[in-house]
């Protein structure tokens, strides 16, 4: 099929960017979106141009590197997928596709579609862990039984791949879904409860410092999340945070 691409090009973090038009032909519908981008880049390079920079690595939807805002949605029109898992069969011959980077003040653009998401790392560094040493000399793994429901919920929260789609799609650039998933994963487990109070306070503080917006419960993040992380966790984060603030 033939496609008309409108891609955000920006040389580096300092220069201003703009949308540039490209045409591409002979795209198979079995290709993944990134393979379509590979074809485009090959063409650009052979014509002496600078290929479109984009983040990608595992190409199986788990590393969270890929981050394209396609036709107004992060990871494109399909649900429950990352950009690398999006296939061209979701588009029609002759379609125009807008491809932009994930936009947020907290995610400065590095080049073209590549953004800097280290804000997420810093939020995790503020408390997204359980403070135990790594000697292996802890309790036997089966000493504390964990209710299956909570273990499953903690797992569901932990499936977050840190791609930033929630921030990208939120009209406020809020990182609440990301933070709530991490906070909830730990607070649902007995091992994580010990530090729950400090953790939630510190992580939210860091989240605010990074310049993300406020959550207004539109729910877009959940819909666009490639792992379908539930809004429940945001509700949980709210109460945990309130409780923790009252405690300290």
């Amino acid at each position, binding site marked *: 099929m033939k496609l008309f691409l409108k891609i955000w090009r920006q040389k580096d973090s300092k220069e201003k960017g703009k949308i540039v038009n490209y045409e591409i032909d002979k795209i198979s519908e079995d290709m993944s979106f990134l393979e379509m981008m590979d074809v485009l880049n090959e063409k650009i390079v052979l014509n002496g141009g600078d290929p479109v920079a984009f983040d990608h690595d595992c190409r199986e939807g788990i590393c969270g590197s890929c981050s394209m805002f396609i036709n107004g949605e992060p990871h494109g029109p399909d649900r429950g997928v990352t950009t690398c898992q999006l296939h061209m069969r979701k588009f029609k011959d002759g379609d125009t596709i807008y491809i932009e980077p994930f936009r947020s003040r907290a995610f400065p653009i590095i080049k073209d579609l590549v953004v800097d998401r280290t804000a997420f790392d810093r939020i995790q560094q503020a408390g997204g862990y359980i403070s135990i040493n790594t000697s292996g000399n802890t309790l036997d793994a089966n000493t504390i039984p964990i209710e299956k429901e909570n273990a499953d919920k903690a797992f569901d929260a932990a499936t977050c791949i840190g791609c930033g789609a929630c921030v990208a799609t939120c*009209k406020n*650039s809020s990182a609440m879904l990301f933070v709530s998933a991490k906070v909830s994963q730990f607070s649902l487990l007995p091992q994580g409860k010990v530090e729950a109070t400090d953790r939630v306070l510190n992580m939210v503080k860091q989240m605010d410092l990074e310049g993300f917006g406020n*959550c207004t419960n539109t729910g877009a993040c959940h819909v666009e999340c490639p792992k379908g992380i539930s*809004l429940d966790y945001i*509700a949980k984060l*709210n*109460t945990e945070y*309130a409780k923790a603030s*009252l405690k300290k």
Partner: protein
Amino acid sequence: MLKKLFNSSIGRKIAMALSGIFLIVFLTQHFLINITSVFSDSLFNWLSHFMGTNPLVQFVLQPILIAGVLFHFVMGFILDYQNRKARPVNYAVFSGSKNSLMVSRYMILSGTVILSFLGLHFYDFWIPEMEYKYIEFKPDDPNRYHHELVEKFQDPIKVVFYCISFVFLALHLVHGLASSTQSLGTSNRYSSLIKKISYSFGIFIPLGFCFIAIYHFLSH
């Protein structure tokens, strides 16, 4: 402690939710009193007179209410300003409609319409009332309320404007109520129930207000 809470994004979000719910309670009360005007002049007059003259209502609840309204609006605008700042460059294409309800994305718009409506509403009812009571010191008349109310709804343009505002109120409430409870941490386990309640409340109350306005316009 509280200061810290309300300095954070989540704290402000909870404050919005709490003030919102407070306003919803007021709105419910306002509606319940107003609806009596449809079927009983005397009950309405009695209730209005009680609310208008009871010192607890006048000097404690009324200032709290005004503070609540001001807080909700000011905080709403501040948050909206911050949220806009969080994305300095906008998307060329943003398909919000594919992942969220329009009402949830345009709370600031519906809120602004409601604010301007409140201006008119204050001008219509509250300012004359304040003048009547505290500036001109007119004599206390327990039976004046119903007929004053009816009089205000004789202008069709005003009725139309009121009704339009109520539509925006509905849009604001439909998301607002559910959103407040989410902010306060209700689990998704109840979310479908809460959504239903939110929808019914958000539609029923403004519809009721519309009905009152139109009823008085038509019946006189």
